[in-house]
């Protein structure tokens, strides 16, 4: 087979626009409008690849993207279906899964060793001696897989597009086109998805293009949005239809879904049914009528209905010598074709392509040999119910269709055309029109006269067509009979698996991998079900298909990923930090400076002069209302009723089990107004937590998360007051701005709320101000601090500084079970106040006493125990390190660790271990630096 047939109207190729593709280093001619598969067929290429397991030669079979036979590496991308991939000038095309070449694949020898690869062979062979599998497995893994994944990231990220419509029609065959045209014309916003690059479905290959052309024109004129080359691969809750096409992923949300997914023609099972030259009639008609390639000169068509006769006429009219083998005993000669009635194909022969078939009565041992180079399997179809089934549609067996069809649909879901059992063109179109009108009416778009039309259409839609006659499940001849072309699973293997007890479709699938390959059951489910039924001694009707799951068509991972988006939070001072050479780190969603100079230098500056850190990331809430105090009293174990305006109190929020959720500062800024800060990473969760309780308690309070509204700087160090004096006219003496106070005054000309608190253990000011002044205030602080040797400091220095003070980090030093008594915050629990979250649990905990305690420890600085290192006693794990850093102030490693409660005594010796390293450490209950807090209060 090679060359092109004479031009005809309606052909897909544009002979005036020739182009060339690079096929394995050779130039292959093509025309605009060709697919890679059609161009290669025209160039005489019959072997399009090698099979997955046995490396058998395979050729074009379906031309619709429904089988694994034509997967190729195209422009570096593996597993592209060449039969549907449009040609582009200069594209690089290579066949895959062969060495050194597809034409001479040395791995083809595996076909002779198939007895060593029965179903589940990886559980059966190479198990003795015990080391054998470990040697063989890597070889099998290397051998498995198709194509080569490109190592370079040279592709544009894929777009993810969200579409919304009243009606989404999935499938652009005649029924789908009719549905879309009606729905859109009625005024419903309508999207139609068609996986091929042209609409028309099965009619695309037809010599007579009238219905298709008319319906395409009607759908286009209706205003429906038609997305060609867009394959739906899954239906999810919503409903959301996920599809690939248009260069990426499409997510379609529609109020009504119309499934017009058609049916997939199925191969018959007989020996060597996988030889190149064994094709489905859809492929033959497309090649001849659309691409003008004659796939064989001498053809045998196996059929039981008009599809086969149409294919036979197409071939005959194109110049081929044709025999029709009709399964029906009563079939007679039609249209001058040579017909062999009551027969089937018993086997095919050939090595690199089919050369003959044996034809005889079903079940007979021998038959008549007919030389041929093309076998056409026509009219055995399986309705494409997978996507429909993902909506929750119920399927039932239909005797006439010899298939599982939808019998119960969810509301707002419609099924039309072949997927709903229509076997005539007019019936399918009527179903489509009816569904389009019904869907439009359901969304309030019912055109005048619709009711009458729907009545007529209902009658037409009931037309189903002739009952289906399927070929025998299996034939009697010699040779492998493939049920699953993707995974090279034969009828014999399915039978063996069923004999081993894997006798339902779900079990067979998992054990033999049938239907788990690239076609996802499109080209094998019918055969597999029937063979399963036969092997299990049940009927086809009793053998349900496997559960439909996405993806129904292959999807590139890149399409699912889309453009890489990592939402990140940055403070309004971020750019200035970058200018200062900050090294950034992730802190939750935030990008924060880890350090500017070295953490050691930054610690030294804070302890001896002054430093400033950007703490804008702190969560901040405005709490206001007549019952604001009541809200806080219930959320915290602390007391807030007695907190004076202008004062700050440290508090920890607990959950109802008494576990610490968060800690931070609560500032009273008015009689009924508070400014609350919480840990950076907990803000969103606490917002939800507070909102939830507020709704439950129905208190007269408003809470607003104002995190981003305020930038915040912590100016800390013995010289911080001097720097503040430069920045403001306000009195910042220790009398005017007392420790644990909140004062409002301008800093650098910007109205600010200044909190005298000190996480790092030095005299310090936490300055909160409107965030868009961030750069201005930061610059002003650096300018004012320059004479005092100010340095910016990052998170690492802050961690050292806080650890020297034994200030805990919730989430780092605490876990999902830590209560205030265990971490030394029992002082804040006011048991004498009315109810608060966690109270009941705390009463129990207080009575039982803590089992563990979070304590400080010091150890020799020669080894820094990592976070998570074990605390052991006589080789037994008894606790863990949560934080540890080298401290210049303490001249040792300082850290926090969980230990048995009885060990919470100063100078208790503990042993810390990690990997092979270990160190002796001593418990220290007081802060390692300024234990009395004199510097903080100064």
């Amino acid at each position: 087979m090679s060359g092109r047939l004479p031009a005809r109207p309606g052909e897909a190729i544009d002979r005036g626009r020739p182009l060339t593709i690079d096929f394995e280093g050779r130039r292959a001619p093509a025309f605009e409008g060709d697919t890679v598969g059609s161009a290669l067929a025209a160039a005489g290429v019959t072997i399009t690849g090698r099979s997955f397991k046995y490396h058998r030669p395979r050729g074009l079979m379906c031309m619709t993207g429904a089988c694994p036979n034509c997967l190729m590496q195209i422009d570096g991308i593996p597993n592209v279906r060449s039969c549907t991939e449009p040609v582009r000038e200069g594209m690089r095309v290579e066949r895959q899964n062969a060495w050194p070449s597809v034409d001479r694949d040395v791995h083809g020898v595996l076909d002779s060793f198939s007895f060593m690869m029965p179903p589940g062979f990886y559980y059966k062979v190479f198990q003795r001696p015990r080391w054998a599998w470990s040697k063989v497995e890597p070889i099998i893994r290397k051998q498995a897989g198709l194509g080569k994944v490109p190592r370079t990231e040279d592709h544009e990220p894929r777009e993810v597009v969200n579409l919304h419509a009243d009606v989404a029609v999935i499938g652009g065959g005649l029924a789908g086109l009719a549905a879309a045209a009606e729905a859109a014309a009625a005024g419903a916003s309508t999207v139609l998805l068609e996986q091929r690059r042209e609409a028309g479905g099965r009619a695309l290959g037809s010599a007579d293009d009238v219905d298709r052309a008319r319906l395409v024109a009607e759908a286009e004129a209706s205003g429906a949005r038609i997305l060609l080359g867009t394959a739906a691969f899954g239906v999810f809750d919503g409903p959301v239809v996920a599809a690939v096409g248009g260069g990426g992923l499409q997510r379609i949300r529609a109020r009504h879904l119309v499934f017009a997914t058609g049916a997939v023609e199925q191969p018959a099972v007989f020996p060597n049914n996988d030889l190149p030259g064994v094709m489905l009639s859809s492929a033959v008609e497309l090649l001849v009528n659309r691409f003008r390639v004659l796939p064989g000169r001498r053809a045998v068509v196996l059929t039981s209905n008009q599809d086969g006769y149409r294919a036979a006429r197409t071939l005959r009219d194109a110049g081929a010598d044709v025999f029709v083998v009709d399964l029906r005993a009563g079939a007679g000669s039609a249209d001058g074709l040579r017909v062999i009635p009551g027969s089937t194909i018993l086997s095919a022969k050939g090595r690199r392509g089919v050369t003959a078939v044996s034809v005889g009565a079903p079940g007979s041992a021998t038959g008549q040999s007919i030389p041929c180079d093309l076998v056409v399997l026509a009219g055995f179809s399986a309705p494409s119910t997978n996507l429909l089934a993902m909506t929750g549609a119920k399927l039932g067996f239909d005797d006439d269709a010899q298939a599982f069809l939808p019998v119960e649909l969810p509301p707002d879901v419609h099924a039309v055309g072949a997927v709903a059992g229509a076997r005539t063109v007019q019936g399918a179109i009527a179903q489509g029109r009816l569904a389009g009108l019904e869907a439009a009416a359901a969304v309030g778009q019912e055109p005048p006269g619709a009711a009458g039309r729907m009545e007529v259409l209902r009658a037409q839609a009931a037309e189903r067509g002739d009952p289906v006659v399927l070929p025998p499940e299996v034939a009697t001849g010699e040779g492998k009979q493939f049920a699953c072309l993707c995974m090279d699973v034969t009828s014999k293997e399915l039978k063996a698996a069923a004999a081993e007890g894997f006798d339902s479709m779900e079990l067979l699938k998992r054990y033999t991998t049938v239907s788990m390959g690239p076609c996802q059951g499109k080209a094998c489910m019918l055969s597999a079900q029937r063979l399963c039924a036969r092997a299990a001694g049940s009927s086809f009707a009793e053998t349900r298909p496997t559960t439909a799951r996405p993806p129904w068509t292959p999807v590139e991972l890149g399409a699912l990923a889309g453009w890489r988006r990592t939402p990140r939070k940055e403070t309004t001072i971020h750019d200035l930090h970058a200018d200062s050479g900050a090294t950034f780190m992730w802190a939750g969603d935030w990008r924060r400076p880890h350090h500017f100079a070295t953490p050691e230098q930054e610690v030294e500056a804070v302890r001896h002069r002054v430093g400033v850190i950007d703490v804008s990331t702190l969560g901040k809430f405005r709490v206001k209302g007549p019952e604001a105090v009541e809200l806080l009293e219930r959320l915290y174990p602390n007391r807030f009723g007695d907190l004076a305006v202008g004062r700050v109190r440290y508090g920890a929020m607990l959950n109802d089990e008494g576990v610490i959720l968060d800690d931070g500062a609560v500032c009273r800024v008015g009689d009924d107004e508070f400014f609350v800060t919480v840990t950076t990473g907990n803000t969103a969760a606490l917002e939800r937590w507070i909102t939830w309780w507020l709704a439950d308690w129905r208190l007269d309070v408003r809470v607003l998360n104002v995190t981003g509204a305020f930038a915040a700087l912590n100016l800390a160090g013995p010289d911080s007051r001097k720097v503040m004096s430069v920045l403001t006219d306000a009195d910042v003496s220790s009398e005017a701005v007392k420790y644990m106070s909140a004062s409002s005054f301008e800093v650098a000309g910007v109205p600010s709320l200044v909190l005298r608190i000190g996480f790092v253990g030095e005299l310090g000011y936490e300055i909160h101000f409107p965030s868009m002044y961030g750069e201005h205030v930061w610059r002003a602080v650096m300018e004012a601090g320059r004479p005092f040797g100010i340095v910016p400091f990052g998170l690492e220095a802050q961690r050292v500084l806080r650890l020297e003070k034994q200030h805990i980090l919730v989430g780092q030093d605490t876990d999902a079970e830590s209560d205030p008594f265990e971490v030394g915050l029992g002082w804040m629990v006011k048991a004498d106040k009315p109810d608060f979250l966690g109270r009941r649990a705390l009463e129990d905990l207080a009575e039982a006493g803590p089992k563990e305690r979070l304590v400080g420890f010091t150890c020799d600085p020669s080894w820094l125990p990592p976070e998570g290192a074990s605390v052991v006693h006589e080789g037994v794990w008894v606790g863990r390190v949560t934080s540890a850093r080298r401290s210049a102030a303490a001249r040792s490693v300082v850290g926090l660790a969980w230990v048995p409660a009885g060990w919470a005594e100063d100078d208790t010796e503990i042993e810390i271990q990690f990997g092979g390293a270990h160190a002796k450490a001593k418990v220290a209950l007081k802060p390692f630096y300024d234990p009395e807090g004199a510097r903080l209060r100064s």
Partner: protein
Amino acid sequence: MIAATRRSPIARLSASLGASVETEAGWEIAAHYGDEAAERALLRDLVAVADVTPRGKIDLRGEIDGGVLTAAGEVLTARMWDGWALLLTEPGGEEAVLDRADAAAGPRAMATDVTHLFAGLALAGPKLEDALARLTSWDPSTLAPGSATGASIGDVRAVLVRRDIGIPVLEAYVATEFARYAWETVLGVVRRLGGGPAGWRALRAEGWS
């Protein structure tokens, strides 16, 4: 000491695209990107994005009656639901609106100046819907001109306000900390559709305020 100016977190990104800065009500505003006419053409024919962070913004929550909204005066009101509204003003207009709203709000309502809480992006042009299709799973057709809702844009939460000024406009207000990420994400989509950034001058010339 340097005069206190307010700067959008997006300012540096705008500057790298050639933004020309003007000062208005204490804000640095990206006035144009070198070619106002071209920016107007994008707004009219394709799609463009502008940094409208300097807008004044007042958050009203609690029991909001019509009286508070009337007292707030001539502002763009994004009414999210009964208990929450966002009032949008020209740059610098927030103080006066806050005073009025605060005075009119009863004890069961709270007015807060959230000008600095949100960064604002105005997406405008005939390809607005195409841009949104790439940025959000929310259905833009559900939002009538003049109304507001909450949805995500580029995977971050936003307050969305739909406007009708002859060209379709959607103002998206995202948390300030996400401003730069959101700008990069939205501008990336806008560029892939053939659009680009637009300054305040072009936006105002098209009737936006």
